[in-house]
């Protein structure tokens, strides 16, 4: 490992103005399509058909720019954004920042998908329905579930949809008024608390045992009651620990009359190794934008199919994609369905990308994915643990982790005053993405959560660990550099006070002009 990172990186720094500052009155970037004279004549004065009180007095104050200016502005903004293609992203745990294959992109951007309307006659969309139906089958095979819906448009949205199914299930049984509690764990993604709460459930949160990193079986037993509607947890957890008691939990919750939904956002490390449905889980979801390689799109659109066991299939959102032996069709006719959680059929281009990815990987490739993802994670984990000030909570029970790992800089913070905030502001000076810390509450002090995924190379891991070591050395010898970081980025340290000050915050340019000009 080299002592100093030698890239001498500096981010693109444009000091790009806000787009409104670039405008010059009268410029325009778009010529509207022409209207035929006869159309105009017969349509008449359409604007006057709008009653005066509903007629806009002045056009919206959008910026006025020519097309080349718009292009240059957004190219500059893209250059100041750091994607998977830009460089090393191995610090971003729970996100599975894997490579997004270009062929999948090309296929998903074909007009044969982009120009499809979701309400077209089924006869005219047989190809896309076939892809949806077949991917559904593959996801059943991967998860051990019996039926999928692609309607939820993000992971948390899928957890919400599953909470709605749990709600509908108990409602049909006439037990919903009594069964109003969802059990989750604090080491599960917070949407497993927030989404069922939005669906009207009370949340019971279990904390991990200080030794094992997992809740005790006894705690689960104590948590269930006649009020239990279900359990909604992530497994593997965001800490990189696979909760090996999962089958016990499922049994306990089932015996209490509840359902179990397992958030499979972290499935990258168990592809081809564990089928959550075979363990008895009733519901699950995958994030296509994580394990299945569809791009994260700067934070969506993602795509999060939900899978359920046969007994719960009747509750799935409508429509489901079906096949009658000769043609594919959409089935809206489901009496017990939860209805809809979003409009239409989900983020369909991502269904195509995921379909292409599974086809490219094949069964062996999925297993190879989980194998290398876990190997990469443990390799990086060991490298990081060799660095002064880094520790691994629950390391005795879980020396090896799954897809990611939650480490702590508590020791470094105690010894130098430099914690994860400073490290994250410094690490970006080297041209790598920052580390994910942890959702709150921080049950691990000064947490950080790397996840290399299978598409990181050994050189990436070595370089990342080397940078981390260099920063650790700085923390112990030159903490000022860290406190003032970043130094090589597009901007310097931001003023966070507007975040919580109603007089200062400005979520739009119009608000900014009112408050600050």
């Amino acid at each position, binding site marked *: 490992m080299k002592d100093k990172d030698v890239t001498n990186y500096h981010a693109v720094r444009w000091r790009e103005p806000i*787009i409104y500052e670039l405008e010059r009155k009268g410029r325009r970037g778009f010529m509207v399509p022409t*209207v035929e004279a006869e*159309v105009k004549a*017969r*349509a008449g004065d359409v604007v006057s058909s709008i009653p005066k*009180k*509903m*007629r*806009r007095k002045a*056009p919206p104050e959008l*910026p006025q720019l020519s097309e080349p200016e718009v292009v240059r502005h*957004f190219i500059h903004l*893209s250059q*100041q954004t*750091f*994607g*998977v293609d830009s460089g090393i992203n191995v610090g971003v745990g729970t996100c599975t920042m894997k490579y997004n*294959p270009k062929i999948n992109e*090309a296929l998903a951007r074909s*007009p*044969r998908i982009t*120009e499809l*309307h979701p309400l*077209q006659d089924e006869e*005219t969309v047989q190809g896309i329905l076939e892809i949806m139906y077949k991917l559904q089958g593959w996801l059943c*095979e*991967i998860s051990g579930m019996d039926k999928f819906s692609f309607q939820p448009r993000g992971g948390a*949205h899928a957890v919400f949809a599953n909470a*709605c199914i749990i709600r509908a299930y108990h409602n049909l049984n006439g037990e919903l008024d009594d069964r109003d509690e969802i059990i989750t764990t604090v080491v599960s993604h*917070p949407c497993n*608390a*927030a989404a069922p*709460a939005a669906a009207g459930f009370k*949340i019971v949160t279990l904390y991990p045992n200080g030794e094992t990193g997992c809740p005790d079986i006894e705690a689960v037993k104590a948590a269930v009651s006649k009020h239990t509607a279900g359990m909604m947890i992530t497994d593997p957890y965001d800490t990189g620990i696979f909760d090996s008691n999962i089958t016990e939990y499922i049994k306990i919750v089932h015996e209490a009359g509840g359902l179990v939904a397992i958030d499979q956002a972290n499935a990258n490390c168990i592809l081809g190794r564990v089928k959550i449905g075979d*363990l008895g889980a009733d519901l699950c979801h995958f994030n296509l934008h994580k394990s299945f390689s569809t791009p994260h*799109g700067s*934070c*969506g*659109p*993602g795509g999060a199919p939900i899978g359920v066991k046969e007994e719960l299939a009747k509750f799935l959102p409508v429509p489901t994609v079906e096949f009658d032996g000769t043609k594919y069709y959409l089935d809206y006719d489901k009496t017990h369905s939860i*209805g809809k959680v979003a*409009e*239409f059929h989900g*983020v*369909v281009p*991502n269904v195509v990308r995921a379909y*292409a990815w599974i*086809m490219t990987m094949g069964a*062996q490739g999925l297993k190879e994915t989980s194998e*290398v993802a*876990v190997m990469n994670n443990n390799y990086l984990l060991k490298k990081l643990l060799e660095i002064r000030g880094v520790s691994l909570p629950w390391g005795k029970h879980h020396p090896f982790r799954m897809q990611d790992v939650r480490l702590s800089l508590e020791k470094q913070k105690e010894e130098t005053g430099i914690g994860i905030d400073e490290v994250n502001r410094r690490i970006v000076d080297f041209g790598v993405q*920052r580390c*994910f810390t942890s959702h709150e509450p921080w049950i691990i002090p000064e947490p950080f959560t790397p996840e290399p995924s*299978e598409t990181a190379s050994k050189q990436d891991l070595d370089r990342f660990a080397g940078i981390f070591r260099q920063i650790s050395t700085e923390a112990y010898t030159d903490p000022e550099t860290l406190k003032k970081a970043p130094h090589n980025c597009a*901007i310097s340290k931001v*003023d966070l006070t*507007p975040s919580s000050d109603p007089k200062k*915050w400005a*979520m739009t*340019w119009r608000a900014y002009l009112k408050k600050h000009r």
Partner: protein
Amino acid sequence: MPVHQYIPNSVPKIKKEMLKYLSVEDVEELFVDIPEKIRLKKRLQLPHPTPELEVKRIIEALLSKNKNCNELLTFLGAGCWPHYVPTVCDEINSRSEFLTAYTGDVYTDLGRYQALFEFQSMIGDLVALDVVSFPTYDWATASGDAAHMAVRTTGRHEILIPKTISPERLSVIRAYSERIAKIKPVEYDPTTGQLSLRDLRRKISSKTAAVYMENPTYLGFIETEGKEVGKIAHDNGALFIVGVEPLSLGLLTPPGEYGADIVCGEGQPLGIHMNFGGGLLGFLASRDDERLVSAMPHRLITITSTEHKGEWGFAYTLPKRTMFVAREKATTFTGTAAVLWAITAAVYMSLLGPQGIKELAEVIMQKSHYAMKRISEIEGIKCPIFKSPHFKEFTVNVNRTGKTVRQVNRSLLKNRIQGGKDITKEFPQLGNSALYCITEMHTKEDIDRLAVALEEVVK
């Protein structure tokens, strides 16, 4: 497994080296957390690893079974509309930095933050409100979020919604508000379609958290009494929520100017392809009132400064509201939603500018009004059903032709025309009716072709 093109460390020699460093013989030892008895013993029944060329051929063959809207003359809208996508929009949203970024902070992802702030700003300009949030999944979920906001802000548990709302959106609002709020439908005037102020006054009470209204409505006409609806809501201590289609705001009074506290809507017309419904982009805006901002369900980006003069910085406003901190007490559960589309919409709005969006709205109206006139001349067809101003969508009733919409659409399809959405089941009181959509994409020739075909079909 041979070496895989996406997996740099799938080379056996590299694996061996890495495992040696980890002091394990077999990679399976790393999976120690997974009990032996639950490990899968069989290989998954999936395709064999397939080379790119073959993947491309197979998927293209599947996709060629579709007939898309370039091949089929389409008059569908109903929440996802065929608009022209300027080439620049796809150029920018194909930039791999935007495409493959996720959740980096402002130092690595300054451009992403700034583009989002600009998206928020331009939506604010369209709707005339000062607070706009991160994008969400679609209009329907944004209206569900708005309902939650109203309940949280007022402490009341009823939402009044006119019966002209899209049944699909209503279904989502129901899923979002079950056990949180009760939905009470409000009647509409059978002649004009306008929300009935009389029924609204009858149903509103001290239990009402909000009145929700759409403009233009799902059925295509413009609600003209927005100001009065807002006044009734406010007089009763309720919030006023308006759902909008954004291009119409080139010509229509923005809801912020007729009393809306919260605005939600669908951003797909702003430069995003329909994608079989996959191109949706929900947006949510509110007045700059601390109570409303605290109840905002999504991340919000504020502009700020940095330690160096002349630099813009960005930060999250009130981050403790979100699920990432507040868990079950959060104002939302939304995480990954639709940022790539929000960036696209920002590009689109800056291309159009004030004049462009106004002109485009007028073009759309001219074409849709021409189409309404042409179709209404056909014997046995009533178009539109409601005597109200319309924007880009309108109803077509075929009761007097003795045919159902389904029959009409089947016949049109034989002429490679996809007719409007059949709303006979959604609105039985409107008889055999369809919802047609005309945009700037439709030429006179297209509309004439539809009119001629319809005339033939219903003869």
